[in-house]
């Protein structure tokens, strides 16, 4: 008989997995609030823990999508290099940049990208 803790973790994994498969993202948007509400994790612990889950979730999703022939491995691996470089630079710059202004700038970028998706 699995514990209720394991059942709740399974529920989070299932919900995040659906979200990740549908949108091609990690699923942190689902995992973080659920860890905070169900397990009383702090925001930092929830986001850090979600990263560990995302490694495994994304690996499953890549395996399943490979079955459909949808993964462009060369493009993905090459673009991983600037992506990882960006993460390291972003984390290192946290204390030196005006986060409010950058948050608003990225929000504007996301809205522009949403518009380009909606307009055919």
């Amino acid at each position, binding site marked *: 008989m699995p514990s209720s803790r394991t059942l709740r973790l399974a529920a989070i994994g299932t919900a995040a997995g659906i979200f*990740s498969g549908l949108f091609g993202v990690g699923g942190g*948007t689902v995992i973080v609030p659920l860890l905070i509400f169900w397990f009383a994790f702090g925001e930092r612990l929830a986001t850090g823990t979600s990263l560990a889950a995302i490694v495994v979730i*994304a690996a499953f999703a890549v395996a399943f999508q490979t079955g459909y022939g949808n993964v462009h491995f060369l493009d993905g691996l090459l673009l991983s290099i600037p992506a990882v*470089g960006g993460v390291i630079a972003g984390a290192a710059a946290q204390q030196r940049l005006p986060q409010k202004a950058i948050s608003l700038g990225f929000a504007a970028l996301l809205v522009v990208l949403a518009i380009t998706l909606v307009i055919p």
Partner: protein
Amino acid sequence: MSEVAAVLLAAAGGFAGGLLGIGGGILFVPALTLFLDLSQVEAEATSLLMIIPVAIVGVIRQRRYGNVSLRDGLVIGTLSPVGVLIGVVAVNELPVRALELGFAALLLFVAYGLVRRALAPEPSSSRSPELRSPKNV
């Protein structure tokens, strides 16, 4: 030329993740559709591949600050495949237009969260560097 733009948007996605704690995938997918001409489904599948190294780097960084419950994270991941399979099958069966509109809604939702956080009043106590939100891919 468009390859350069794809590289820049991928770097921006990682940068946003490291700096602001938003997911990189949300920028990887448009980078792949707009600049490398992948379909929405191919872009989402390839974004998931990019997320793996980005999340591994994030786990290594955040573990140093004690921000990772590795066991709980691995349990969530290990118990996710049923959900992942549902999502992956759905994304391959749904009409592309529905996927595009759904992804646009996700972009707006994350943008709303960024604006709300940017406009929230400063917390009264000063936070040390490692207490900043880690990224959430």
